[in-house]
């Protein structure tokens, strides 16, 4: 029943959610957490290891592979130019139409 009540875009079957690939320049990071806190999909967490400056840089959180929507907010909010995303170049199976995304 919950499935039936969900609002769905009319073109949901054809529109693909963009998928982002996260790129990191670990040694530039100073650990401010801007990207982690303001990622709208909570894709990022602090790394377990530290970079050469001793900061925990952002990495994709466990289980969040494929969650990045390439909104690029981390790209533009990062004060160190240490992270950016690009649209992932992967197969349609890995980038399913909106209708198939689990709610």
């Amino acid at each position, binding site marked *: 029943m919950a499935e039936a009540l969900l609002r769905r875009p009319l073109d949901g079957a054809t529109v693909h959610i963009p998928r982002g*690939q*996260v790129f990191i*320049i670990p040694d530039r990071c*100073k650990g*401010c957490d801007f990207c982690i*806190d303001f990622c709208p999909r909570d894709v990022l967490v602090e790394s377990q290891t530290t970079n050469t400056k001793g900061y925990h840089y952002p990495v*994709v959180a466990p289980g969040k592979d494929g969650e990045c929507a390439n909104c690029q907010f981390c790209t*533009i*909010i*990062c004060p160190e130019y240490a992270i950016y995303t690009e649209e992932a170049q992967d197969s349609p199976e890995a980038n399913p139409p909106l209708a198939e995304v689990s709610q």
Partner: protein
Amino acid sequence: MAEIAVASHPIDAVLRRDRLPHIWCPGCGIGAVMACYARAILESGIPLDKHICVSGIGCSARVPGYMNLDTYHTTHGRAIPFATGLKLVNPELQVTVFSGDGDLFAIGGNHFIHAARRNIDINVFCVNNFNYGMTGGQAGPTTPMGSFTTTTPYGNVEPPFNLAALAAACGAVFVARWTALHVRQAQEAMQRAMQKKGFAFVEIVAPCPVSFGKSNDIGEGVDEMWMYRKQCVVNDDADVTKIDVTMGKEAELVVGNFLDIERPAYMGYGKEVLGEA
């Protein structure tokens, strides 16, 4: 898809990569604001060789040193008159003054008000972090009342400037205020400033956790960014005289593109005044 470690960033195209990492502290907002400026340049449609960046002294004044443009790091407070001379000689150049609140509004305050009055065709992008960061966190002309700094150990007793109101009152033709969190809006405001003929002013409120945030119960840079997220109100139609920045825990921080008017730009006292052209 896990993250991929790489060695460069798309914005590096406008930066002097051999000067990175920059000097700013963890959690400082200046780096994010500089990236807004860099993207605005890339989107401006104006060749990079025609963009000139001039600054005074202070943390924010270090921005031109990282920009891969013709850049001028001048004396404290004097970026605007320096830029005035440069622009008047070569009006083809897209001249931006990028500096901080103390530099532009304390020691450089007189130059700011007169440049706005003349309507010299430059952009002034001001990172407002409420204190003198580079010298270790002293009070300045934007320090909110009651704030603790190294020169107001019992709390600040001087009322601060409302920079947007000041710029508008002095004659700026474009006035905006955003924060280091509003990176898309700040970039767009900067692009509009570049297109504007005349004195265009964009204030970007930014965290200075080390020298201001920690001593004023704000916390880290990211905490101040959350403060912007919760307390900012976008209102392009706000009365600029009523939008002081208090940094109070519950206070609204009004942001927006407040003013966009037309007024003849100052070209200097040159051949145009003869009325023959």
